[in-house]
């Protein structure tokens, strides 16, 4: 491996999980050994929470209830808009309401295996334990989960698991869970325990004497750059899938909060682990601004196919049965159309690469319900998928009951994120990271309905408990604007903002973002190669250079300036993109969402290399011009045995 791309530093390890007791007791043991903050002291401590998604919203509300002084930040107008709102499918919990053999241990096992053995057992086990409390909490808040006629909660099987452990609220589970957390948060805002900072973007972390002590933020309406101090900082800013420009994330989803924290010393773990979802509505044109996910449940009844011949441009319904290639059924006779996300995505890419894709640009495959409609009748299909079909028709203007849907994979979730220990604390003391922003529980691949579970586990139950061990040493010495570290951070933000505005070149932030995204998709997307990644790194460096010399952002920073917001985010995406490529390049194995063409079985399946890569790659940022430093956290599997996945 070329030395100039990175260097290797000291290994890193979690020291918080009490590994001296069996895994099932570690969480309660950790809580018992952890230190507490007494209620009167809590009132003297301030905690900053960046983000109001499932993770941040639930954390801020819970910490407020506990009596801490919480300052909550988000970039939208209302906390209810965090992108958790868009999650459709459901949330897992080991309730075993179906009496089908589910248990905490099985959920733990499935999640470790689903993560392709690249996650930390202790964290995953805790997640499975806490999952049951989440459902209780949400139901008590009034989350209207689907119910059966007897009035009890309904469950379904999701993402190919053999048990039915997914709780759902029609196709809007994330929305309903988020509103539960949002309402709890608003209640605390009304009670005065949480201070709200709407439309305020975190632009830097303030670190004083090695501890995270606050943030620098910009009020997106007035443009004012302000500082906020606290005894601890919690980051819950969501995923960074928008590095690909097109993804199922919200337009404003960004890496800025975690990237700036990374630049202040927080290690970034497994940045290259990206989940690409197979059933999204394909791209229509180069004006495309985002991609829309269609629930995976569609694959239960839809059949995926492309024409057998390259360049067959007949309308779908004119292609006779024997000239269609139902490639998933052909390649995976036992799982067929229900193979895991990464496999379905990669095979779609393969057939399109062969020139057999359909729709604009040949970037799509058919998802055909003709057979299901014949078998079940149109009313049954309508009842099951009506809202999805409507959504598809709304976006594409085509009637999926008549012509097959076209689908294509899209970037959906980022398993990577800031490195945290068992307490969810980053490598900067006093800075905690929760939700999709951390790397903790999903390894190299996230199972369906597990991100909502993780966000709420972190926010409601884990962080509020673990953070007290840290705060037991507080409150820390007061700091103010005049502290040199604060002055330096504020100046840095001001300078960068000014610089973005003063280049006055010839390209908009969106144009750079699109170019970066295309590059990442092509070379660091579903299939990655040594050569491609090297090329990508070179190109990203060029893009970065051009960005800082040819960017055009109008207006000033003392006002509502959406172009400026975007520019700042793109600047961070460019830097992150490079690290993702470096990470992908260094990991010369395939695992979960990371597929290296060089590492596959003779049948073309992902081939892990446990000998050399059973570790978390935690990256340390280094100043301009120096390669990032890799710290490995070795992964050991005590309870789940390492095994190769097979879906043949």
């Amino acid at each position, binding site marked *: 491996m070329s030395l100039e791309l990175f260097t290797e530093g000291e290994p890193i390890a979690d020291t918080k999980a009490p590994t001296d007791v069996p895994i099932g007791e570690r969480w309660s043991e950790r809580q018992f050994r952890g230190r507490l903050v007494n209620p009167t002291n809590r009132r003297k401590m301030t905690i900053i929470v960046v983000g109001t998604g499932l993770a941040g919203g639930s954390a801020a509300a819970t910490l407020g209830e506990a009596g801490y002084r919480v300052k909550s930040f988000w970039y939208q*107008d209302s906390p209810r808009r965090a992108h958790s709102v868009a999650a459709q499918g459901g949330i897992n919990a080991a309730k075993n309401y179906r009496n089908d053999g589910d248990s905490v241990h099985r959920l733990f096992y499935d999640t470790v295996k689903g993560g392709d053995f690249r996650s930390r057992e202790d964290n995953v086990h805790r997640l499975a334990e806490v999952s049951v409390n989440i459902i209780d909490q949400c139901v008590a808040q009034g989350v209207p989960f689907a119910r059966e006629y007897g009035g009890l909660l309904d469950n379904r099987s999701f993402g190919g698991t053999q048990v039915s452990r997914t709780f759902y609220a029609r196709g809007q589970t994330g929305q309903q869970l988020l509103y539960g957390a949002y309402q709890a948060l608003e209640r605390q805002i009304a009670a005065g325990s949480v201070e709200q900072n709407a439309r305020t973007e975190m632009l830097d972390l303030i670190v004083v004497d090695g501890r995270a002590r606050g943030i620098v933020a910009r009020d997106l309406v007035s443009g004012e750059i302000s500082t906020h101090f606290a005894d601890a900082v919690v980051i819950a800013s969501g995923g960074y899938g928008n590095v690909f420009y097109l993804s199922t994330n919200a*337009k404003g989803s960004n890496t800025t909060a975690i990237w700036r924290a990374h630049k202040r010393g927080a290690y970034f773990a497994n940045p290259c682990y990206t989940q690409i979802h197979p059933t999204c509505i394909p791209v229509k044109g180069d004006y495309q601004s985002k991609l829309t996910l269609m629930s995976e449940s569609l694959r239960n009844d839809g059949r995926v196919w492309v024409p057998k011949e390259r360049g067959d441009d007949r309308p779908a319904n004119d292609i006779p049965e024997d000239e269609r290639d139902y490639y998933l059924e052909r390649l995976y006779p036992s799982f067929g159309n229900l193979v895991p996300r990464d496999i379905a995505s990669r095979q779609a890419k393969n057939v399109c690469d062969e*020139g057999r894709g359909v729709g604009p640009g040949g970037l799509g495959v058919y998802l055909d319900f003709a057979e299901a409609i014949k078998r079940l009748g149109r009313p049954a299909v309508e009842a099951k998928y009506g809202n999805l079909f409507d959504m598809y028709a709304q976006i594409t203007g085509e009637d999926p009951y008549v012509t097959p849907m076209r689908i294509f994979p899209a970037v959906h979730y980022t398993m990577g994120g800031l490195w945290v220990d068992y307490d969810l604390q980053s490598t900067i003391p006093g800075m905690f990271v929760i939700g999709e922003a951390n790397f903790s529980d999903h390894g190299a691949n996230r199972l369906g309905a597990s991100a909502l579970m993780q966000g709420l586990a972190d926010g409601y139950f884990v962080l509020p408990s673990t953070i007290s061990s840290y705060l037991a040493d507080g409150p820390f010495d007061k700091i103010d604007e005049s502290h040199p570290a604060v002055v330096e951070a504020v100046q840095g933000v001001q300078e960068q903002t000014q610089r973005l505005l003063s280049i006055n070149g010839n390209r908009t932030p969106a144009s750079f973002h699109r170019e970066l995204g295309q590059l990442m998709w092509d070379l660091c997307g579903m299939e990655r190669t040594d050569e491609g990644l090297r090329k990508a790194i070179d190109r990203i460096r060029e893009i970065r250079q051009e960005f800082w010399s040819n960017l055009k952002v109008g207006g000033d920073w003392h006002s509502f300036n959406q172009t400026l917001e975007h520019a700042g985010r793109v600047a961070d995406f460019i830097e992150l993109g490079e690290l993702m490529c470096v990470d992908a390049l260094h990991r010369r194995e395939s695992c979960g969402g990371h597929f290296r063409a060089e590492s596959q079985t003779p049948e073309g399946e992902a081939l892990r290399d446990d000998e050399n890569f059973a570790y978390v790659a935690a990256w340390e940022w280094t100043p301009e011009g120096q390669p990032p430093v890799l710290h490995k956290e070795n992964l050991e599997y005590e309870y789940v045995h390492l095994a190769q996945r097979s879906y043949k």
Partner: protein
Amino acid sequence: MTATRHDAPMTSSVGNPGAEKRGMNLTLRIWRQQGPTVKGKMVTYKITDISPDMSFLEMLDVLNEQLIMQGDDPVAFDHDCREGICGMCGVMINGQAHGPQQTTTCQLHMRSFKDGDSIDIEPWRATAFPIIKDLAVDRRAFDRIIQSGGYISVPTGTAPEAHATPVPKADSDAAFDAATCIGCGACVAACPNASSMLFTAAKVTHLGLLPQGQPERNDRVVNMVAQQDREGFGGCTNIGECSASCPKGISMETISRLNHDLLGALRAGARPKS
């Protein structure tokens, strides 16, 4: 227009229904306003070659890219998820909240318009939703209505086992329907009285239908109604513009339910916190 998403060998566009369509030319009249206290006005823009497959916001993106390149101030508008669920987007399009279809602005597509059309775009207008800039307004009044009682008080960790209280499926489904409100504000924007009744009623209905919501039911409704009045929204006169403009189809029935609960709560002696 054709998209290139990867450098795979590409054949001629395959089975592409819309490939040859020519783009539309449109006249846009957009409300431009520098800030909350500045006077605004409608400004006319011509835009060409708009694909019918574009979303309405993508059309605005195209306009903004052009404005930025010309050194003009791009049009400010709110949006985030662009899939009809966050409730952040929302503008008046030719006098209708979210435009001619009952959906969110981000889910409206340009195929709803035709070549040569003139489109008027304005922000939501209501005292309680001050304009931030151009088409972006401040809807935090909605959050304050929720703060006044739109929740069930259940501190984390105190919840009983989820199956302890069965909920009749019909109630649970009806609660869900009301709970789908995305807080976009189209109801207020469309209402001739600028009333927030549908928004408030959706929450009162959602929580009021569930057994978990009963203990706070009376206080919730009196406080939420008092808050919406305090925010400066208009009163409801049951006209129904709200429900007809609501992208989630929240029904007028929720308003009846709110009224019912409110009158009952007042009779039972519930009074708003001041």
